[in-house]
């Protein structure tokens, strides 16, 4: 599903995004000048370990970063419009219509005192005005059907649904307005394996039917491989590698990417458990040079890695990496 790599086809363009979290002992650098793009119709996988800044980056796109976090700097162009330059009213209009969110904890993302139909409806009616009752009901039922939920969910309350069902309601809500971009923040992480499959399947179908562009955030490389077109790897607030999914698995250029791939358990062969030494550094105090160098076990590492911050650059066609060449 190759999308044309030119400006016209860009749904999302993130430029030099910097997000910090204030703590009593110093600012935590959550996003340190992150750049990436999403082209129309494609799915970009955003991977990295917990705390690497992927959720923060996603929230920043919608300007949903909560205090004590704050966006210091950066441009986020959705369909050519910079989200950072919008005022309150414009931002509210752009949210959900241009960019929608499938949140991480669907268990808690639904209002416990509102029926499902009302929660889907208010998103629609806020952006499209009052809708005639019958049409609205039709539309909601159709959305529920699209995500594989039975019609009776329409009248139910969130606590009456299982985890997987709640997640699918969130998917239905997100696609209701046919947004240009859907950000799915670890939609399957909180679910058991069987339900994960169902939800992943649902997302694929929805994506195919509606042709939405998607950012799929996760930390499971194996799952990502089945769902996305390109993968972007983040570590400690920095973008390390971006490449089409095939390329990144066949030829991972960044040592960290390599480690993530090696960590995928395999049914076919017995692999020794590869443990990545060390812990992520204190995010308030990044090491000089490449942020990954303290844990980098690559034979290509040089003294340069300690001094100079590597910049994300194109090494092969559409394959970007932030690592110093030999």
């Amino acid at each position, binding site marked *: 599903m190759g999308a044309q790599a030119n400006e016209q086809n860009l749904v999302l363009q993130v430029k030099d995004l910097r997000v910090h979290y204030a703590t009593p002992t110093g600012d935590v650098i959550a996003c340190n000048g992150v750049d990436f793009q999403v082209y129309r119709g494609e799915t970009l996988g955003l991977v990295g370990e917990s705390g690497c800044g992927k959720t923060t980056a996603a929230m920043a796109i919608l300007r*949903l970063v909560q205090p004590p976090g704050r966006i210091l700097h950066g441009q986020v162009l959705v369909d050519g419009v910079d989200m950072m330059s919008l005022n309150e009213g414009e931002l509210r209009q752009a949210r959900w219509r241009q960019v929608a969110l499938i949140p991480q904890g669907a268990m808690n993302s639904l209002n416990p005192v509102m029926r499902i139909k009302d929660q889907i409806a208010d998103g629609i009616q806020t952006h499209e005005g009052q809708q005639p009752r019958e049409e609205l009901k039709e539309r909601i039922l159709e959305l529920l059907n699209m995500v594989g939920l039975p019609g009776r969910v329409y009248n*139910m309350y969130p606590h009456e649904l299982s985890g997987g069902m709640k997640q699918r309601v969130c998917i239905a*809500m997100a696609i209701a307005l046919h947004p240009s971009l859907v950000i799915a923040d670890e939609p399957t992480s909180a679910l058991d394996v069987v339900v994960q499959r169902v939800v992943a399947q649902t997302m694929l179908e929805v994506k195919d039917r509606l042709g939405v562009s998607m950012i799929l955030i996760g930390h499971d490389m194996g799952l990502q491989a089945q769902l996305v077109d390109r993968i972007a790897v983040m570590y400690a607030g920095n973008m390390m590698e971006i490449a089409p999914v095939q390329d990144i698995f066949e030829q991972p250029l960044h040592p960290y990417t390599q480690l993530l791939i090696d960590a995928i358990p395999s049914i076919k062969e017995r692999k020794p458990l590869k443990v990545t030494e060390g812990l992520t550094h204190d995010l308030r105090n990044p090491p000089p040079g490449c942020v990954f160098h303290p844990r980098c076990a690559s034979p290509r590492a040089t003294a340069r890695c300690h001094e100079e911050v590597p910049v994300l650059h194109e090494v092969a066609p559409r394959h970007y990496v932030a690592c110093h060449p030999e």
Partner: protein
Amino acid sequence: MSFTLKYILQRVGMFFLTVWLGATVIFIIPRLAPGDPVAAMITQLQSQAGRVENSAEMIAAWRARFGLDDPMPIQYLRFLWNSLRFELGYSLRFFPTTVEELIARNMPWTIRLLVVATFVSVLGGNAIGALMGWRHTPKLVQNLLPLALTFSSVPPFMMALGLIYVFAFGLDWFPVSQGIGRGLGTDWQWTWEYVKSAIHHAVLPMLAIFVTGMGGWALGMRGMMITTEGEDYMILAQAKGLRPGRVFWRYGVRNAILPQFTAVALSMGWIVSGQILVEHMFAYPGMGTLLNVGIMNGDYTLIQGVSFILIMATALAVLLVDLIYPLLDPRITYQRS
């Protein structure tokens, strides 16, 4: 049995348990005091015999009516039975008026004052608290709100005293005491003159109650709003681009208010106690004043009767709140089938 039915039965059962517990305590207390309380009552009657003509008949009627020579358990059961039928005995001071009659005269005044003042206090306090806890309340409003709380640590009866001194005695804007103008009597009439006088007399007592009550509710609601704001569904609500007003009400307040209902049920006892004292300060023709009359005159039956009725009223109010709660929180009524 459906879940809702079970819940309702539980709450009603609780009502009866509370009333029973209160009645038992009221029954036991006089019998714990040193000496024979019945003899004390009779002495009391006899000491007033100078004022009452037929004291001998009174005593005889008393003994006959209330079987004072029966064994204790029988007396207890009879007491419970009578209380439930609202037969609370004769007032010692106002014989042959029964306690029920006195209560019936004063209860409406208490209800009028209590219901209105509590409503304003709870609603107003929670509204202020919700606004205080909401991150997006305009700065101007947020800075004004703590003013509303300055009196929250002052007990209602003190506020009453202060208000009387300043606004009634000092400025003469409001009457110093009573619930209705002189000469108008305590039976409610729907004439403009009567209603106007009643309102005029009610202003200070109501102020005393809700100015002091709002603070507690505001603080509680503020805490709940802050907690609710941190919930995931609030983030999604914002991501959906919903209007701030809708997020505030349907997502914020609607969830934060639920524990406050429980809090209202729990503070009923305290609210009633405060009300009693305020009425006492204003000589308002309600249950508080009636209680005081009982105390001043050593009218034990009146004291007991008033206590019992108030306990029952409090338990009833709690029951009502408990029954309304499921209407607001679907997790109680709708259980996964």
